[in-house]
């Protein structure tokens, strides 16, 4: 308010010239702020900007700000600082350099920045923004490199992080209330920062003490999760933190020799002399945000490798998995991925720019490996499947003579390892491959893959070998994205047996001798007539005698689907039209709802997509109860279908529907959230029970037999289901364990459930 009144007064009694000068000043200030913002944001981008240009931008920024910074601009710079460091934690070093340069001219402002960032470190922990917090920690670590804070301050700060890890003396020690994931995260923050400062601080007592603490912690912590989180059954994937320790320790044994290929960006080196003119700041009393009940930390991870050390013959200069260089490469790629994953063009440009800046290294291989690793990650991927796929397509387009070969190579390795791949990420692989090749004319290693199958190829549905199931499901998915003739053209003759018959509806009541055919005929006539209406149809159905209610429902369902078979829209239109008839016939009666589902199965026996989409629609229309879908899926009649993807698509869609329903009730019923609690829990528990029952009923079979494969597939589906609803399962893990207690449960099943419960607890 004050400035406004003074402005008005000025306008009244001073010359126009003064006003103009004011305006100009204001405008200059605005331009300056905008320039600073543009440059600061630009520092975090890795779009292939050359090192020289980044250095020049840094110098220019420092020069721009060397002539005094207004209070307004200071606030702006600080807020930009935390935004940039928070969203590009991998670029924290550049921003530390920037602050180091500011420190040369403006000690007080940097002091302010430092307190601000320390505050943000605390806040981001409190708000559980782990990636931002790690960014701030690495920023602070690099402030030491930029001669803004002394080593004592930095080491004290890092010691605060490790204090809780040191408190853990024994894995059985339950005194520490916080979960291991919290300590893992704290240890990760410090451990991942060590390569940045090791060379400088080697030998300092406080630094060596940190290393010892880390070593002890890594040894004592529990890494039981690795088996369950491994994508490969035959290949134990290492725990991420454990491997990072080995990588860092290896670096230490080489006396912190600088990793090759400038994998640690040390932009501040160019300003060493300038930076030495700044004064040091001391950090006092840094505290971590304490653990709060229910707080979720980054989950444990295992390392995923496609291009392992032994396939290095083809991939030159790929750093060995135990070298710090591999970690640094992967960490940079991961940071870019996490910063830009929603913008596939920006993300691809950054990744390709990064690859171009390291021509000596097989960065494209690492990019593809990291993306596929995140996509197939267990228990679940972080983003939707097509996010990874769209990004890989973009990368292929951006660098068509480099990336596609690597993707093909990766696909091939994954295909050859299918035998030991976890079922829990099988669908993700099929979905990705089908989407990817649909963007490139459905070209893929069809013939090579066909050759790797035992000859002669047995395409029958009872062949449940992983590669065979993969090809069968992949071809079906490709057909869903394309059409019969197109895929038939692409697939070699050896795989022709996998091409399903054309997806035509099968309407059996054309055979007039079948029971129900008479009803079907009169219904068809009525439904086709102009005067058709639900009441009329209901009347015909109830007036029919001589056949049971279940057959009546089956006939009616088949008639609807037959008439609507032209497209989903046609089907949906008919289902909506006769919604009330369905309701009257089957509401609240599980047996009758099964008759509807069987009707779908009869008509669309040749189309997994129709079976899934129509059933899903009936659930959404609340004609079929979610529990009926569960009963249907686990009905003995469906046994063979459980090895197909569409069944699980339907199951998960049904649970999602149930979640939406629960959510809607919760929104209405805010006062009593417990009232609606059992819906999702109920369906999940019944799913697990049905799984256990179905699996336990299976005969114990020798490896390699159909029975054996069937068991493996369905057991894997149980694990996948647990993984997908891990959060929901937390509330009833005791009940899950109870299910295992029954004597007839096979040990493989209880092992799967118990390992899962141990993981989520």
């Amino acid at each position, binding site marked *: 308010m004050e400035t406004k009144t003074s402005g008005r007064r000025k306008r009244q009694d001073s010359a126009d010239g003064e006003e103009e000068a004011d305006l100009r000043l204001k405008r200059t200030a605005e331009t300056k702020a905008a320039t600073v913002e543009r440059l600061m944001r630009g520092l975090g981008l890795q779009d292939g900007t050359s090192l020289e240009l980044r250095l020049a931008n840094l110098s220019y920024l420092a020069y721009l700000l060397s002539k005094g910074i207004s209070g307004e601009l200071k606030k702006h710079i600080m807020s930009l600082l935390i935004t940039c460091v928070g969203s590009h934690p991998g670029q924290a070093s550049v921003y530390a350099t920037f602050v180091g340069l500011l420190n040369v001219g403006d000690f007080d402002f940097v002091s302010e920045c430092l307190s601000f960032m320390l505050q943000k470190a605390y806040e981001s922990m409190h708000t559980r923004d782990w990636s931002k917090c790690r960014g701030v920690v690495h920023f602070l670590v690099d402030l030491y490199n930029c001669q803004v804070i002394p080593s004592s301050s930095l080491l004290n700060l890092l010691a605060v992080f490790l204090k809780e890890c040191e408190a853990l003396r024994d894995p059985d020690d339950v005194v520490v209330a916080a979960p291991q994931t919290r300590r893992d995260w704290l240890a990760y923050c410090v451990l991942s920062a060590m390569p940045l400062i090791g060379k400088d601080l080697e030998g300092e007592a406080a630094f060596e003490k940190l290393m010892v603490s880390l070593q002890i912690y890594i040894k004592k912590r529990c890494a039981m999760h690795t088996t369950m989180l491994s994508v490969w059954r035959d290949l134990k994937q290492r725990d991420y933190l454990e491997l990072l320790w080995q990588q860092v320790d290896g670096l230490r044994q080489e006396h912190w020799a600088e990793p090759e290929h400038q994998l640690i960006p040390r932009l501040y080196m160019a300003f060493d002399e300038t930076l030495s003119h700044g004064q040091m700041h001391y950090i006092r009393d840094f505290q971590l945000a304490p653990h709060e009940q229910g707080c979720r930390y980054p989950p444990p991870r295992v390392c995923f490798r496609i291009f392992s050390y032994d396939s290095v013959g083809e991939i030159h200069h790929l750093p060995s998995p135990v070298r710090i260089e591999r970690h640094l490469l992967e960490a940079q790629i991961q940071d870019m991925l996490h910063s830009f994953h*929603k*913008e*596939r*063009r*920006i993300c691809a440009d950054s990744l390709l720019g990064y690859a171009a800046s390291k021509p000596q290294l097989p960065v494209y291989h690492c990019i593809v490996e990291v993306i596929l690793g995140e996509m197939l990650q267990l228990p679940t991927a972080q983003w*939707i*499947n*097509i*996010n990874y*796929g*769209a990004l890989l*397509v973009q990368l292929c387009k951006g660098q068509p003579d480099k990336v596609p070969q690597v993707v093909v190579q990766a696909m091939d390795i994954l295909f050859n390892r299918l035998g030991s791949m976890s079922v829990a990420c099988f669908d993700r692989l099929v*979905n990705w491959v089908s*989407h990817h090749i*649909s*963007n490139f*004319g459905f070209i893929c290693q069809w013939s090579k893959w066909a050759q790797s199958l035992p000859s002669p190829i047995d395409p029958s549905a009872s062949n449940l070998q992983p590669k065979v199931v993969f090809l069968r499901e992949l071809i079906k*998915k490709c057909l*869903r*994205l*394309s*059409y019969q003739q197109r895929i038939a053209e692409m697939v070699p003759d050896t795989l022709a047996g996998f091409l399903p018959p054309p997806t035509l509806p099968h309407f059996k009541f054309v055979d007039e001798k079948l029971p129900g055919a008479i009803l079907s005929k009169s219904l068809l006539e009525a439904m086709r007539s102009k005067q058709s209406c639900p009441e009329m149809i209901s009347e015909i159905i109830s007036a029919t005698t001589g056949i049971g209610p279940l057959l009546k429902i089956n006939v009616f369902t088949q008639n609807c689907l037959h008439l609507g078979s032209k*497209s*989903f*829209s046609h089907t*949906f239109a008919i289902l909506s039209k006769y919604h009330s008839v369905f309701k009257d016939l089957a509401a609240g009666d599980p047996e009758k709802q099964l008759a509807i589902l069987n009707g779908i199965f009869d008509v669309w026996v040749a189309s997994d*997509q129709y079976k899934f*989409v129509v059933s899903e629609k009936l659930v959404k229309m609340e004609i079929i109860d979610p529990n009926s879908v569960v009963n249907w899926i686990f009905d003995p009649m469906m046994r063979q279908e459980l090895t197909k993807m569409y069944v699980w698509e339907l199951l998960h*869609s049904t649970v*999602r529907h149930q979640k939406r329903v629960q959510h809607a009730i919760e929104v209405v019923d805010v006062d009593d959230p417990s009232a609606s609690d059992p819906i999702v829990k109920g369906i999940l528990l019944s799913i697990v029970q049905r799984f256990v029952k179905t699996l336990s009923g299976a005969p114990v079979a020798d490896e390699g037999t159909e029975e054996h494969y069937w068991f493996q597939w369905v057991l894997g589906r149980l694990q996948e289901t647990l993984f997908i609803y891990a959060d929901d399962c937390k509330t009833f893990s005791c009940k899950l364990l109870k299910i295992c207690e029954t004597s007839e449960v096979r040990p493989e099943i209880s092992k799967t459930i118990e390992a899962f419960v141990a993981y989520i607890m």
Partner: protein
Amino acid sequence: MSASVELSSYRDQHFKGSRSEQERSLRDSCTLYVGNLSFYTTEEQIHELFSRCGDVRVIVMGLDKYKKTPCGFCFVEYYIRSEAEAAMRFVNGTRLDDRLIRVDWDAGFIEGRQYGRGKTGGQVRDEYRTDYDAGRGGYGKLLSQKIAPNTDNR
């Protein structure tokens, strides 16, 4: 930063309401316009691709006003906005039936909009095209009318 979910410059000229109302409904919409489809692409294929971004509520196929056959566009509606955004991010500019398809925000389907607005019944763009596009009925309508009866007098 979120370039791919921003509104494009295209505005439906038949929208009933002011420009700002139109923009507001585009910003809240869960409906997408999908263009550059082949005439042969089916609703089932579109469903498969767009389901990978979320639960599809409805697909309305664009039809030729007179022939009532698909004419190369459709509307896809999701239940929630974030899933429509995912389609803008990950499907726009990628291939379906070997064609790069266009995905854009739409203010919401209204009966009548499923029909092509060109004079010949299809989409306007298919009247003026001068290229040959097998997936969209060959040459543009105007051009093929010129080609069909040979009016070349030279």
